[in-house]
C-alpha cells in the first residue's frame, strides 16, 4: 500500500467506512450518502475541466440534466420489458457526451471568459428544450423512475443494493478520472492550462485536447446525472438549470480546484448544507454567494488544497520561521493563476 499514490490510499481508507454505511442507517442515511456520491462524481468530472484544463464551464447542467432525462425516460417506458438499467445509464452518458461535443465544438473557438459565456448561453438552449419537449415533463419533471435490476439479477429498488452499486460506480469513476489526469493526455492538458502558447509551439493540437477534455468531462457528468436519477428516482427541471452548474462550481472551488479529493469534500459539504438549509429559500443563495466571495478572496486553493499546501510547508520546513511562511504564502500555487496569457 505504501507505493500507491496518495489519492488512491485515501480512497482505500475511506472505502471501509463507506462499505459499512448500510449497517448504520441512523448515522448516515444511505440515500443521502448516495446523493453525495453522485454529486461528488459530478464535481470530479467538473474538476477535470476547471482544475486540470483551466476551462470554466457554466453549462454542465445541460449534461447532468439531459443524461438524467434520457435514463429516466428509458427506464419509465422500457424497464417493464426488461430493458437493462446498465444500457439506460450508458445511453445517458452517450447523450451527455454528444451534447458535450456540440457545446464543446462551439465553445473552444474562444478562450477565457468568452468560453464561459458561450457555455452559459448554450446551456440556456438545453434548458429551453427541456421546458418545451413534452416527454421531459417540463416544469413537473419525471417521477417514480424505476431502478430496474442490475445484470438482470440484483433488484436495485432495495436501497442497500442501490447503495453498493452507486459506491462501485463512484469508485470506478474516481479511478478513471485519476487515471486520465495522470496519463500523458492529462499532462498535455496541464501544459495547455499553464502555458497555452508554449503547448502550441510544442506541437500540441490544443483545440482537440480541449474538446476531448470537454467531452470526457461531459461523459462523467452524464454518468453522475444518470446515477442521480436512479437514486432519487426523479428528474427535475432544476437539474438542467444554471444553478446546478454553479453548485458544482462551488463544490469544486470550496474543496480545491485541481485536487483529487477537493471536489468530493466540497460535494459532501454543499449537499449537507442544502439538506439542512433547504427551507430557508433566499438565505441559501446568500450563503452560497458569500462562500464564493470568501473562497475567491481568501482561500483560492480550497480546503483540500490549503491542507496539502500546509503539509508541504511543514514537510519542507522542519522549524518554520515567519519569513519562510510568508514566502510560501505568496507563491502562486492555485491552478488558474498561470493561465492568463500575455497579450
Amino acid at each position, binding site marked *: 500500500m505504501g507505493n500507491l499514490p496518495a489519492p488512491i490510499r485515501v480512497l482505500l481508507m475511506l472505502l471501509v467506512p463507506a462499505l459499512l454505511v448500510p449497517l448504520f442507517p441512523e448515522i448516515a442515511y444511505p440515500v443521502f450518502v448516495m446523493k453525495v456520491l453522485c454529486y461528488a462524481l459530478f464535481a470530479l468530472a467538473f474538476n477535470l475541466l476547471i482544475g486540470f484544463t483551466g476551462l470554466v464551464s457554466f453549462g454542465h447542467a445541460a449534461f447532468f440534466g439531459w443524461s438524467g432525462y434520457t435514463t429516466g425516460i428509458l427506464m419509465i417506458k422500457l424497464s417493464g420489458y426488461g430493458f437493462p438499467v446498465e444500457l439506460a445509464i450508458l445511453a445517458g452518458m452517450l447523450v451527455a457526451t454528444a451534447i458535450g461535443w456540440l457545446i464543446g465544438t462551439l465553445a473552444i473557438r474562444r478562450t477565457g471568459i468568452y468560453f464561459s459565456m458561450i457555455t452559459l448561453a448554450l446551456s440556456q438552449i438545453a434548458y429551453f428544450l427541456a421546458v418545451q419537449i413534452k416527454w421531459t415533463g417540463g416544469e413537473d419533471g419525471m417521477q417514480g423512475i424505476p431502478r430496474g435490476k442490475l445484470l438482470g439479477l440484483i433488484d436495485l429498488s432495495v436501497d442497500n443494493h442501490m447503495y453498493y452499486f452507486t459506491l462501485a460506480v463512484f469508485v470506478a469513476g474516481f479511478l478513471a478520472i485519476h487515471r486520465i489526469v495522470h496519463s500523458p493526455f492529462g499532462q498535455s492538458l496541464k501544459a495547455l492550462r499553464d502555458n497555452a502558447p508554449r503547448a502550441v509551439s510544442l506541437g500540441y493540437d490544443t483545440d482537440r485536447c480541449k474538446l476531448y477534455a470537454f467531452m470526457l468531462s461531459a461523459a462523467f457528468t452524464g454518468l453522475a446525472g444518470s446515477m442521480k436519477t436512479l437514486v432519487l428516482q426523479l428528474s427535475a427541471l432544476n437539474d438542467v438549470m444554471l444553478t446546478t452548474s*454553479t453548485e458544482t462550481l462551488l463544490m469544486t472551488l470550496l474543496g480545491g480546484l485541481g485536487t483529487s479529493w477537493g471536489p468530493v469534500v466540497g460535494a459532501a459539504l454543499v449537499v449537507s448544507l442544502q439538506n439542512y438549509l433547504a427551507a430557508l429559500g433566499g438565505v441559501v443563495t446568500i450563503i*452560497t454567494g458569500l462562500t464564493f466571495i470568501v473562497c475567491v478572496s481568501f482561500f483560492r486553493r480550497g480546503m483540500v488544497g490549503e491542507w496539502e499546501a500546509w503539509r508541504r510547508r511543514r514537510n519542507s520546513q522542519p522549524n518554520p520561521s515567519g519569513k519562510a511562511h510568508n514566502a510560501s504564502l505568496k507563491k502562486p500555487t492555485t491552478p488558474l493563476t498561470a493561465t492568463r496569457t500575455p497579450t
Partner: protein
Amino acid sequence: MFDIPMQSLMAQLLVGLINGCFYAVLSMGLAIIFGLLNIINFAHGAQFMVAAFLAWIGFTQLPLLLGPEFKLNFWVALVLAPLIVGALGVLLEKTLLKRLYHLDHLYGLLLTFGVALVLEGIFRHFYGISGASYDPPALLQGGIDLGFMFMPIYRGFVVIASLLICAVTWYLFEKTKLGALLRAGTENPKLLQAFGVNIPLMITLTYGFGVALAGLAGVLAAPIMQITPLMGANLLNIVFAVVVIGGLGSIMGAILTGLALGLLEGLTKVFYAEASTVVVFVIMAIVLLARPAGMFGKEK
C-alpha cells in the same frame, strides 16, 4: 404565415427595440468594465435589479416606513439609484475586486458571480420571487397614435433615453480627453501610469461608471418589466450572448449588436414565438462557426 397585420408587427418590433436598448446599455457597461479591469462583471444583472428595486422601494416602501414626504418619484430615482448602485460598485472594487487583478480573470468572474448571488438572495429573502410592479411617472403615462401603431409614451421615452445614454457614453469614450486616457489605459496601463496618470483611481471610477450604467438601465426598466430578484440574471444570460457576438472590444460594437439582436428577437416573436427566447443563442452559435472572433471582435 406572412400576412401578419402591420399593427402587431410594429408592436413586436417596438418591444424588440426596447429589449435591444437594454441589451445595448448593459453590454456597453460590460465592455467598458472589461476594457480596463479585464474582468467580466457577472454582478451586472444583479446591479441592474438592485437599481430597479431601489426605485420601487423609494416610491412605495419608503413612504410607508418614514411618512409620505419621503416618497421618491421616478425622476429622483433615476438620479439616485444609479448613484447608490455605482457607489456600491466602487466599494466592491476597492475592497475585493482589486485584490484579484494579478490573478487569472476567471477569479474576477467567480467573485462577481458570488456578489450577484448575495444580492439576489437578499432581495429574494425580503421581497420573495413573485415580483412587484411600478407605474410610469404621470408625465409619461398614456400614449400617442402614430397612425400605423399606438405608442405608449413611456416606451418611447425609454428608447430615446437609452439611445441618448449610449450616444453620450460613446462620445465620452471616443471623443474626449478623458476617453482618450481611458482607451490608453485599456491598451497599456503601465505606460500610462508612468506618465503620471492615477490608474488605480481610474479603474475604480470606471467600474463605478459601468455599474451605474446598469443601474440607470434598471430604473428605466422598472416600469416596463416585472421587478423580481431574477430580472437581471435572466437578462444577463442574453447580454452575454450579445457580448460574445459583438465582442467586448468596442463600445459602438456593443451598442449596435445589442440593438440589432433586440429587433431580431422582436421579429422572431412575430413569425415563430416559441423560438424567440433562444434566437439570440442560436445566432451566437452561427456567428461562432462563421466568425469565431465575433462581429466586431479582436480577440483579447
